[in-house]
């Protein structure tokens, strides 16, 4: 799952650093992801993992690191 998340971040996150240099805990916003780019990341995650983020999860904290994104997707797929 981490590889997929990294691929999506590389493609849509418009980060100012190389995705390979990020740890799971790196703050993606501090790595240059704008709120605009985060919307594209959300869309790509929904498409790739076949999940829908409910509105309560559409906030900054949920997408702030690879670990946070993974936790959110795990929560959604566990329910499904």
């Amino acid at each position, binding site marked *: 799952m981490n590889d997929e998340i990294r691929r999506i971040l590389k493609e849509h996150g418009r980060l100012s650093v190389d995705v390979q240099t990020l740890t799971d805990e790196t703050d993606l*916003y501090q790595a*240059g992801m704008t*709120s605009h780019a985060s*919307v594209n990341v*959300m*869309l790509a995650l929904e498409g790739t993992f076949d999940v829908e983020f409910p*509105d309560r999860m559409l906030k*900054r*904290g949920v997408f702030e690191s690879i670990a946070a994104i993974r936790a959110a997707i795990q929560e959604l797929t566990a329910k499904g």
Partner: protein
Amino acid sequence: MQEPHPNSTSTQHLEVVRRIAQKVAGPAADVVDREARFPHEAIDALKKARMMSALVPAELGGFGCGMVELAGMCESLAQHCASAAMVFAMHQIQVACIVRHGMSQPFFQRYIAELVERQLVIASVTSEVGVGGEMRTSICSVERQGDDFGLVKDASTISYGEQADDLLVTARRAPDAPGNDQALVLVRSPNYTLEKKGGWDTLGMRGTCSPPFKMTSRGNVDQILREPFADIASHTMVPFSHILWGNCWLGIATAAVSRAHAFVRTQARAKPGALPPTAMRLAEASSMLQTMRTNAHDVASECQELMQTQEGTHSLSSIGFALKMNNLKVSSSQLVVQIVNHALLICGIVGYKNDSKFAMGRHLRDAHSAALMVGNDRIYATNASMLLVLKDN
């Protein structure tokens, strides 16, 4: 037409501001507009009434006013002088950022105590030449040297920059930080200089005195708010801005409709029994004004409620809430122009004349600033993108 909304809290403080609006801001409004000068009478009166610290919690020496009450103050002031109202609103937004995000830092605790004591006025330096109006991106950066920093910003506009005591500035956190990794920095006189780069001869909002400046400052790193600007923006700066601005525009619309209403009454009195033709248009304006008022008050109350709890504060950064804030901004900035235009059509030539008591010129010119303060097209584009992931559940 100016009945207070049933949900508005009509407190003592709001009454004080209403009186200042009526007795001080109003009489100076035309000359402030004509000369494009700072509404110093109104701001001095607000300082004397200790309103520059109105939202500072009571335990820190302020009045602890919430969003609803501040919104009411902005509306009242704008009914008489929109420039004074906007200066007041913009200052309160800066104070809100410090009070809600800086109170764990001793420097900012001391600063707020001084602000309460001296009724300091803070201007905002978020705009920058070269970022295309995007508040969440900076080019300039904080340059640290030990415990000190230097910061130079080419600001495309600083409202009341020359009249303010201190400035709250956005900048990249460090020279190697990406454009959106911003910090909010308080720079204090005399440790900054402003070099004026242009004028402020505008269509409206002329008393806000907002020319471009090159700002050069230095200070101690304690003056940097530790929380990322991203959080300060979504939790405080954006909601306070859109709600207080929206209520300033509501004040402009209310004043215009009130003048139009008075005009229709004089027409009706001249021919009792015959409905003046302008009365229909007044009915239409009144309905638009109610829509605008309900929206502005509703979002202010909701935001005030959310800010009171931890859970609520988290939802301030949700896409759903951001969409609501943005909708308030675009809708009220469009309605204010439509409503003032209606009022002008009702009053006709006496509304068109600048020297009549039904003059609409200043209101119309001030109203047109609303769609430009953070351009509506930019906001629509953001909303369009957020709607792609929002599910309405």
